[in-house]
């Protein structure tokens, strides 16, 4: 569940992205896993989805090894893009700002920090996703 003001916008990185809608000081907790609202699904539930929805779902979710479940964030957190040079430091339980982030900056995290094999599980080449945010 997001803890800071954000908005969705077309991203320079990939499709739609999540952007800060306030100044976020370094170390602010920006997101926390909240089992009452963030939604978990088993592999079987995922496999029962229509193929197109399954593809969409995989794009938005992450696999939580501890629970052996796919988690899809209830809110716009699901739109955060991947970067090997992230401004958000992620763990499976919470995210925090790696540095001061200005209002209007895109928030990016490294998907492999909370799901080591994020790209392999989805059959995506991580080389296509090694984006670096420039112009800090």
């Amino acid at each position, binding site marked *: *569940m*997001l*803890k*800071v*003001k954000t908005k*969705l916008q*077309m991203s320079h990185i990939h*499709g*739609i992205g999540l952007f800060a809608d306030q100044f976020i000081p370094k170390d602010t907790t920006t997101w926390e896993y909240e089992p*009452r*609202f963030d*939604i978990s*699904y088993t592999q079987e*539930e995922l496999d029962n*989805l*229509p193929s*197109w*929805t399954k593809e*969409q*779902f995989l794009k938005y979710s992450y696999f939580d090894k501890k629970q052996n479940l796919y988690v*899809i964030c*209830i*809110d*716009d957190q699901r739109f955060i893009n991947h970067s090997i040079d992230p401004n958000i430091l992620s763990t499976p339980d919470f995210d925090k700002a790696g540095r001061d982030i200005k209002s209007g900056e895109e928030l990016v995290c490294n998907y492999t920090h909370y799901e080591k094999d994020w790209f392999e599980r989805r059959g995506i080449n991580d080389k296509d996703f090694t984006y670096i945010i420039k112009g800090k």
Partner: protein
Amino acid sequence: MILIKTKLDKSKTHGLGLFADQFIPKGTTTWVYSNKYDQAFTKKDIEKMDEVTKKQFFKYAYWDKTINKYVLCFDDQRFINHSSKPNILSTQKEDIAARDIKKGEELLCDYTKFDENYFNNIGFEH
């Protein structure tokens, strides 16, 4: 749960929108309510959310009077925009293409067809 291929893009109507990513013949069921995947929340659940989350929640949710809960579609259906001249005919449980829809067209529905007080409940201007 969306049953056809769609994508998100910048809308001419409002913010982001939901677009057809395939040809959709008239009469096609484009979405069904799934109590397994779509999420329903009581008014009490929502009171427990902090203000930032609540605001986002109401941007996407609708009130289903048949179950007395707010529903949040788990997929991109939550991005469908409102129109009084929709190409999607909505009910609380199912959406149907009102006419042939070309690939690339924005999908639009009339929010008041599934939540008659939508604009009052959510506190947004029509």
